[in-house]
C-alpha cells in the first residue's frame, strides 16, 4: 500500500516540475522578504528614534506616523551648537577614556598573574560578584563618600565609580584571553632569562593584542552607557550624555526632536563599534565570565 501511495505522489511532482519553478522562485523571495520584514519591525524602535531626530516639529506631531519627510539637521544644530550638549559629549569621552586606561594599566598584570596562578578562586569570585552587583547598592555609599570628600561633580569621582565595574570586567575578560595562551610559552621565555614581568610584557602581551582591543572597546562602551553613577555623582560641570537626556524631558514643552538627536548621538558610536567586537559580544556582555566562540 505504502509503496504505491509513494509512487502516486512522486509522479505528479515530476510532471509538474517546469510549472513549479515560478512557485519556487516565489518561495525563495518569501524566505528573504519575511525575515527582512521581521528584522525591520524588530529594529523599528531604533529606526524611529533616528528618523525622529531628523524631523521638524510639524513632522514629529503629524497624526499618522510619517516615514517620508524632508529631513532637517536643525535638531542637531540646536542641541550641539546652541545648547551645550557638546560638553556632555566631551565629558562622556573623558570619563570613558580615563577609566578604561586605568582599568587596563592596573587590570592587565593582575589578569595575567591570576591566569598563571593555581589559586585565586576567591579573588575571581569576588570580581564576578562585583561585576553583577547592582549599581544602586554602591550608589548610596559612593554618593555620601563623594559628598564628604568634595568629589561630587568632579571627573575623579565618576572615574572612581566607573572603575568599580571596569576593573573587575578587565580582569575577568583578559584572564580568559591569557588562559588561552599555552603556559609552555611562559616557560620557554623564562628559560631564555625573562623574569615574570619580562615574560608578561614582551612575550604574552603581543599575543593577546586582539583580546586587549576587544576588552578596551567593551570598557569604553560600558562607561559610555553607564547612567546611575553619573546621575547621582555629576553636576553641571561633568554631566555625561545619558544624564543630559532626561533633563530635556519636561512636563511642559519637550523638544522631542532635540531629545532624539542627543539620543541618536549617544547610541550611534556604540552600535557602530559593536560590529568590530561582534565575535566577543557574549564574553563582553557577561563580564568575561563566558567566552562563547
Amino acid at each position, binding site marked *: 500500500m505504502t509503496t504505491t501511495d509513494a509512487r502516486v505522489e512522486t509522479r505528479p511532482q515530476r510532471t509538474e516540475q517546469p510549472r513549479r519553478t515560478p512557485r519556487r522562485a516565489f518561495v525563495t523571495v518569501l524566505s528573504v522578504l519575511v525575515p527582512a520584514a521581521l528584522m525591520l519591525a524588530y529594529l523599528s524602535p531604533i529606526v524611529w528614534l533616528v528618523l525622529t531626530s531628523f524631523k521638524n516639529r510639524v513632522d514629529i506631531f503629524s497624526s499618522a506616523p510619517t516615514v517620508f519627510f524632508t529631513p532637517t539637521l536643525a535638531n542637531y544644530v540646536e542641541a550641539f551648537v546652541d545648547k551645550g550638549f557638546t560638553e556632555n559629549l566631551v565629558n562622556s569621552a573623558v570619563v570613558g577614556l580615563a577609566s578604561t586606561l586605568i582599568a587596563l594599566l592596573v587590570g592587565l598584570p593582575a589578569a595575567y*598573574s591570576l591566569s598563571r596562578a593555581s589559586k585565586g578562586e576567591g579573588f575571581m569570585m569576588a570580581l564576578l560578584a562585583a561585576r553583577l552587583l547592582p549599581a*544602586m547598592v554602591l*550608589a548610596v*555609599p559612593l554618593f555620601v563618600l563623594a559628598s564628604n570628600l568634595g568629589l561630587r561633580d568632579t571627573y575623579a569621582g565618576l572615574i572612581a565609580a566607573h572603575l*568599580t565595574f571596569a576593573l573587575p570586567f578587565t580582569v575577568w575578560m583578559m584572564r580568559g584571553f591569557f588562559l588561552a595562551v599555552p603556559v609552555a610559552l611562559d616557560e620557554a621565555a623564562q628559560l631564555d632569562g625573562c623574569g615574570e614581568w619580562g615574560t608578561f610584557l614582551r612575550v604574552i602581551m603581543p599575543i593577546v593584542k586582539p583580546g586587549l582591543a576587544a576588552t578596551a572597546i567593551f570598557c569604553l562602551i560600558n562607561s559610555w552607557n553607564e547612567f546611575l553613577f553619573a546621575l547621582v555623582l555629576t553636576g553641571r560641570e561633568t554631566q555625561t550624555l*545619558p544624564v543630559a537626556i532626561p533633563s530635556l524631558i519636561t512636563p511642559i514643552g519637550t523638544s522631542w526632536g532635540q531629545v532624539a538627536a542627543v539620543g541618536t548621538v549617544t547610541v550611534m558610536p556604540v552600535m557602530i563599534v*559593536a560590529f568590530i567586537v561582534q565575535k566577543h559580544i557574549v564574553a563582553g*556582555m557577561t563580564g568575561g565570565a563566558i567566552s562563547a566562540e
Partner: protein
Amino acid sequence: MRWARIGMQAPSLVILMLVLAFPLVYSLLLSFQSYSPVDPAADGRWIGLDNYARMFTDTQFGQAILVTLGYVVLAVALETLLGLVLGIWLSRLVRTRRLMTSLLLLPMIATPLVVGLMFSFGLNPQFGYMTSALQSLGLIGEAGVLDSPVGAFAALVVMDVWEWTPFIALMVLAGLSAAPEAQIQAAQLDGCSTFQIYWHVMLPMIRPVIGVAILFRATEAIRMFDQVYILTGGGPGSATTVNDIFQYRVSFTAFDMSYGATLGIATFAVVMTLTWVLFRYLNRRGAA
C-alpha cells in the same frame, strides 16, 4: 617570583578595596545609623537594627519586590523561550547568519537609557508609532499604553524581551555550534525527525549554557533601572516601581541615605547568593 606576583595583583586589589570594599563596608555601617543630609535630626546616630525592622514592615518595599519578581520571572521566561527559537533559527542560517547576528545584537549593546528613550518615543500617546499601531488594532484608547498600570508593566516586560532575547539566542547558538556532531548524526541514522533531534538530543546538550544564560539575565534584570527611569519613572502609581527605582526614590528623592543603604545591603545579599550559584555552575562547566 612571589614578589612579581604581588606586584602584579596588588594595584588591582588596592583600587578595588578603595572603590568597592570600603564603600560596601561604609554602606553596612550606614545601615545601622540614622543619616540623611537634608534632615538635621538624622545626624548619623546609631539606631541598631531599626532600619532592617522598618524594611520588613515597609509595604511599599514589599510592593516593589513583588513588581520586580513578577517582571524578572515573566521577562526572563519569555526571553528564554523566544531566545531558544531564535538561536535555533540562527544556527540553521548559512549565508545570512553573520548579518542577522550583527543586527540582533544592536539592542543589547545600545545605551540602556536610550533603549528606554526609544520605547518612550514609540509609545508616546501623541506621536508614537507603536501607539498608533495598537490604536488601529483597537487594543488601547486615546491615553496610550503607559497610562494604565497593566499597560505600563507590559511595556516594561516587552522592552526587556526586545533588548535581551538576542542574548539568550547568542548563547544558544554558541551552545549548538559546540554540540558534538556524532550524536546528532547517530540520531539522524536512527530515523529521528528534526524536531525529535532538537528536543531529545540538542536541548539536553545545551541545557548548561541555557542555565548560565538564565542566571545572568536574572541578576541583570534584578538591577533594571535606566530604562524604567526614563520610560515610566515607576508609575503609574507603583505599577512599575521595581526594586532599584524604589531605592532611588528612598535615597535620592527623600535622601534617606541610611534606609537606602539598608535596602542596598539586602539586595547585595540576594545578588551574592545568585553569584555564588552562578560561580559554582561556571566552575563545574570548566571542570567537565
